[in-house]
């Protein structure tokens, strides 16, 4: 590995290093309450490196030396494994941002964990490393390892509380994750066997040459891709691979669940997009239908079941399933049938960029919600929606922010998700998936029902207690930042949207 390679890997190394740093610091730091701030500060490393890489990238697509086949330079050995491009960097920022907010939000939460705070933050940072790698990975083995690097720490974090619910949730997460991994691995093996490579670019070339009557051209690819999608579907929390979600959301620590719902999901989408659009683009019309179906199922199931939930975190579990559905609409809409005789798939005008934008908007809104829920549940010790009664009097600002985030999740302007939904449904209509767009908007309307129910309870029901709800400055800061991002993306979506559009250019090689 050359120095250049280390430079390329620096954000990932910095993130992993930050994890180790925090864990070690925990051993020596006398005042545990400062630990979150150190963890937060440690994020500066990956962030700055990502920023430097971002500017370093300039107009090029890939930071790695030798990525451009016409340069005679000594090619980087990482070329076969990852691609540090704008796409990866977009997710770097997204994930680092989410981690930062989650870390800040956890300051109050971890206070009573005493000895194991370092491990808590360390695991979060490890998981973040995996997520960042996932977004950059262009090779199946790397993808697999990165995926496990996100899954296993998350499982540990889910079980972190060692309570009955927490350990049960962790166990469920682990087992479902493992079974999904096994399925995905079998799929990867089939794809590898058929194409003779684990690199997405070579897979793409090989698939381009294959043809047949079965979906995806032949059986190996057919079953292989489906098994892989099943594995990814677990991470995406998309139906029908979604059933673990509500349980884990209910059982896990609140900030972890927020992290899971935002960063982990974003990383999963990153890899799905990367795999589908660079690896399997030639069979895009087949997986397009498949993804559309999964999207539809996720939206419908997520929204319908959410209606009857009484636990707010569980409700958010279903909500996140439905949002996975909306986002998948964007994935499915990324391709459309070409005009030629062979109806070869083509990039749609709006494609994965809508997904990226949605992910950013969703991250902001959902984190806002989860940060607020974290603060509230720390006080009222309950996740039952009915216990949120009268929140508007107990802490009006918190209630308003939570309400705003809920409205954002419905997709009410002027919040980021409105623009994001608009963007995604635009993409769907553009790609001829009008039915999916209509289903999506109807689902959005249905979702209003359960989101608004929470608002209603907060604002209209009388409070059961007069006790004020308060929080320390760090969570408030996190909440403020997330909320501001949520609104900002609704009022001035241009910035993030341009970034997303730049990012996906890396895919269309």
């Amino acid at each position, binding site marked *: 590995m050359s120095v250049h390679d280390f430079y390329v890997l620096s954000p990932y190394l910095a993130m992993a290093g930050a994890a180790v740093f925090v864990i070690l610091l925990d051993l020596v730091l006398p005042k545990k309450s400062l630990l979150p701030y150190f963890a937060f500060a440690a994020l500066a490393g990956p962030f700055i490196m990502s920023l430097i890489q971002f500017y370093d990238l300039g107009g090029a697509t890939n930071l790695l030396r030798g990525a451009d086949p016409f340069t005679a330079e000594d090619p980087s050995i990482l070329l076969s494994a990852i691609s540090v491009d704008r796409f990866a960097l977009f997710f770097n920022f997204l994930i680092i941002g989410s981690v930062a907010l989650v870390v800040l939000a956890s300051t109050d939460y971890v206070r009573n964990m005493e000895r194991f705070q370092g491990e808590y933050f360390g695991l979060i940072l490890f998981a973040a490393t995996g997520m960042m790698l996932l977004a950059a990975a262009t090779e199946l083995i790397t993808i697999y390892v990165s995926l496990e690097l996100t899954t296993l720490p998350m499982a540990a974090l889910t079980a972190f509380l060692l309570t009955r619910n927490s350990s049960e949730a962790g166990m469920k997460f682990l087992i479902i994750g493992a079974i999904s991994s096994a399925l995905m691995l079998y799929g990867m093996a089939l794809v590898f066997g058929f194409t003779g490579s684990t690199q997405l670019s070579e897979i793409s070339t090989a698939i381009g040459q294959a043809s047949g009557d079965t979906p995806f051209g032949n059986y190996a690819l057919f079953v292989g891709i489906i098994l892989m999608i099943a594995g990814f579907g677990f991470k995406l929390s998309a139906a029908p691979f979604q059933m673990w979600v509500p349980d884990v959301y209910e059982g896990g620590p609140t900030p972890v669940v927020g992290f899971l719902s935002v960063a982990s999901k974003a990383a999963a989408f990153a890899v799905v997009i990367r795999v589908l659009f660079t690896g399997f683009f030639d069979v895009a019309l087949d997986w397009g239908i498949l993804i559309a179906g999964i999207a539809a199922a996720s939206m419908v199931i997520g929204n319908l079941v959410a209606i009857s939930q009484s636990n707010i975190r569980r409700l958010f579990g279903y909500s996140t399933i439905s949002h996975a559905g909306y986002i998948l609409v964007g994935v499915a809409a990324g391709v459309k049938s070409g005009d030629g005789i062979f109806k070869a798939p083509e990039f749609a*005008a*709006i494609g994965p*960029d809508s997904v990226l934008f949605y992910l950013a908007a969703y991250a902001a809104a959902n984190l806002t919600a989860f940060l607020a829920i974290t603060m509230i549940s720390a006080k009222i010790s309950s996740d039952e929606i009915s216990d949120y009664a009268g929140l*508007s009097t107990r802490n009006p600002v918190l209630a308003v922010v939570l309400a705003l985030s809920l*409205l954002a999740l*419905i997709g*009410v*302007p*002027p919040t980021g998700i*409105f*623009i994001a*939904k*608009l*963007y995604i*449904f*635009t993409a769907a*209509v*553009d790609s*001829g998936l*009008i039915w999916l*767009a*209509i289903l999506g*908007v*109807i689902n*959005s*309307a*249905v979702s*209003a*029902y359960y989101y*608004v*129910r929470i*608002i*209603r309870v907060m*604002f*209209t029901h009388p409070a059961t207690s007069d006790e004020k709800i308060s929080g320390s400055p760090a969570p408030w800061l996190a909440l403020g930042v997330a909320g501001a991002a949520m609104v900002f993306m609704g009022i*001035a*979506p*241009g910035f993030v*949207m*341009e970034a997303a*559009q730049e990012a996906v250019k890396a895919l269309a090689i």
Partner: protein
Amino acid sequence: MVEGYNGLLTATVFLPAVGALVLLLVVKGDRNVRNFAVLIALADLVLSLLVFGFFDRGAGADRFQFVDRITWIPDVGLNAEFLLTVDGLSAPLVALTGLLGMCAVLASWRIGLRVKEYFIWLLVLQTAVMGVFTSMDLLLFFLFWELELIPMFMLISVWGSGRKEYSAMKFLIFTILGSAFMLVAIVAVFLTADIGTFNMVALLDEPTMLTSAGLLIPLSGLFWLFFVGFAIKLPTWPVHTWLPDAHTDAPTAASVMLAGVLLKMGGYGLLRINVGMFPSQTDRFAWALVTLGVISVLYGAVVTIRQTDLKRLIAFSSISHMGLVLVGIGSVGISQGTLTVTGLNGAAMQLFTHGTVTGLLFLAVGLVYDKTHTRYIPDLGGLAGRMPVVAVAMLIAGLASLGLPGLSGFVSELLVFLGAFQAYAWPTVLAVLGIVLAAGYILWMMERTFFGVRRPQFDDLTDASLVEAAPLVLMVVTIIGVGVWPTLLTDVFESGLNPMVDVLNGVINP
């Protein structure tokens, strides 16, 4: 050209929102909150009247005036603009909003629960509605359209009565569902290869561009998608059922705003988008609009007759009256000759007049409810003797509602009928029967509520106080003013509608 930045509309639209913010952050004490809210509402009323008053209705005047235009979302897939402007169609509705906003604030004088919050929502609501009437960018339009939901939902579900939560939720779900359809249509319009804009001015200027190739959804599909969104808001049979519940359980001011301006958003949308942008489809489906309109008129009226709750009664009557908007638009379906602006102008006038009339009805009913604590008609009676001001207001509103000449309702109904009769004679005749039914339920309501023997428990009722009477007087003056001098409005509406009619004539007589 629709360019530049005038600033008046921005001020008109955002003044209430800014006021709400100041209210939230600065103002303390219920009394100050009320006074401040009134001040803001008054200022906004003045601004909206300025918009209406200075709207140049001369022959050579620009179609769109008071343009505020800047880029909002740059050209990255969604090139949307912040474009506020008014034409003849929207200017009166802006004034109406200012007027009813003022009345709503005044009608809320007695609110005692969470006062500050209440007025904040009320002011935010006003911003949203103003925004709908002035934004000429589909995306911005939609933004305001959705924005209005939240304050109204809160107003109903916190300060309402009865099954307020159910009603608020129903209102919300219906509207969101409708706007969902609308959103799909907006997107599809935007995506059409040679359109690629949300700019409604551009879309209105050359509506035929929508007939160009490359539509993602057939024109008729777009038309109906938009229609569903607006029909729910209007509301049209059979998607009206949210209205009676929402009206009945909303607080007075919310009812006033709901009936007075929120429903108008539906009618405005129909005129602006369905008629303005899809002239060929409007012509093609005029029969369907008329059919729905006539059903709404008659069905609404007949069901109204059965209602025993004052607010519910007015709510159902709104369904009946808003059906006339559809009937008026149906005038587009003439089979021969040249389309005149009469029917469309009637529809637009109906928006305005129904806004004032129903606003007044709800104000009066609100007072009745405030004082008697019941809205159940059989429990009332003989109130005229104790509260003559309210009774007179109610009577005038009722008479306007049943289309009495000299009051505003007559003009709009007459124009609607004149226009529609040319296209669909028999359906119009049926719709005319609606006004007989209107006489029936209005007078029945008056008889049972204000006339007849007064119950002893109402002997100590007091009439409206000065603050309470002020909005009544404001509305009565408007109703009579428009009724006596309708040209004030019709000219403005006509200047907005004439370009549409020209296009429509091109479609009808190719």
